[in-house]
């Protein structure tokens, strides 16, 4: 059978990720879409560890480690440096977790988006500070347990709508992706590569130790997130909105929540509230899809 995505691997085996890590699949597909002429800029995040200790590196492209708050600023600088040396071709990608994006890196991110820096910013969102042991971030959804959400009922606050914040910056390209849909993800990175200006890609990246599920279920949960409508696959190119997957009938959110230990403390009414929120969000997304903006 002919492979539906490139067989070229820029991410090598032997990396330091946990078993079943969604962020490694995300990097694998991202680099398939971007190709070797890419520089990756990492703030503190899981991938700081996954990449391995110098001089070894688990991705076959140059990698710069940046301070936690500075991914977008450092990537802007790398791009400016490359341009100053006459290299207009190399793609510069900031690659940050949800902590480095939703919370700690948001100032640098907003600044770079506002300047319309010619970089790609990818947030691989595992919905908490997983690298340091599951502390709540702005990306943690309501009801999810973390080490810093007291009690059994999990996060009281809802997940911050970062995509809306990025859209408000009126940047040329915004897309969402998740590893269960590799062709979609590879296509979005390849498309982002061809666009000039600030491009933002938000990837939902399942995390077995942080979400408390069996390592074998990473792709299954990633798929369920989309099938239940908890995570929507869409892109906004030059202001035009398009749902990439619009399930005629969404599965109940419980199918996504139940296999995850982090939602074990959810009360039935909390699950119903999450379902109502998802339904309301999809009504809006469907309207936007029909309208095309």
């Amino acid at each position: 059978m002919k492979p539906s995505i490139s067989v070229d691997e820029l991410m090598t085996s032997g990396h330091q990720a946990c078993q079943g890590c969604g962020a490694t699949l995300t990097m694998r597909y991202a680099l398939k879409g971007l190709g070797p002429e890419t520089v990756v800029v990492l703030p503190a995040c899981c991938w700081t560890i996954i990449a391995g200790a110098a001089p070894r590196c688990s991705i076959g492209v140059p990698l710069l480690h940046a301070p936690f708050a500075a991914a977008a600023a450092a990537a802007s600088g790398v791009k400016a440096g490359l341009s100053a040396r006459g290299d207009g071709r190399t793609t510069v990608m900031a690659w940050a977790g949800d902590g480095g994006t939703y919370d700690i890196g948001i100032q640098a991110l907003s600044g770079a988006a506002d300047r319309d820096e010619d970089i790609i910013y990818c947030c691989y969102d595992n919905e908490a500070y997983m690298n340091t042991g599951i502390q709540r971030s702005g990306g943690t959804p309501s009801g999810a347990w973390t080490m810093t959400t007291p009690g059994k009922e999990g996060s009281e606050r809802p997940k911050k709508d970062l995509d809306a914040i990025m859209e408000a910056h009126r940047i040329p390209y915004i897309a969402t992706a998740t590893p269960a849909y590799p062709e979609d993800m590879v296509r979005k990175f390849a498309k982002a590569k061809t666009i000039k200006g600030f491009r933002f890609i938000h990837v939902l990246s399942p995390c077995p130790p942080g979400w408390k599920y069996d390592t074998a279920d990473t792709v299954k949960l990633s798929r369920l997130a989309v099938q239940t409508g908890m995570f929507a696959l869409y892109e906004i190119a030059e202001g035009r909105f398009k749902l990439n997957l619009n399930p005629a009938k969404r599965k109940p959110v419980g199918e996504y929540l139940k296999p995850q230990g982090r939602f074990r403390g959810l009360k039935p009414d909390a699950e119903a509230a999450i379902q109502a929120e998802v339904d309301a969000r999809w009504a809006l997304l469907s309207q936007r899809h029909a309208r095309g903006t």
Partner: protein
Amino acid sequence: MPRLKDEPLSTPVVTPSARPMSENPTGDWRSVAPRIDAEKCTGCLLCWKFCPEACVDVAGEVPRIDLHYCKGCGVCATECPAHCVHMSEEAAS
């Protein structure tokens, strides 16, 4: 933005590390190992596509999982539509 005058264009600007993490065999992290039933395999490549370790070789007719690197997560066994990947306990070493 002007190019710096003292740097010829031929200067390599940035280079990837010459030493990949594939020097780091992670197979000993594993407690269960996958085995592909070659008779049932349909060659759909999903085990290769969804491998978080990128350690499935698809050059041959049946995919080959490189146990030097496989951490035994079991994603391939869950995703295989033909149910031909089996996970089995490894003997303690």
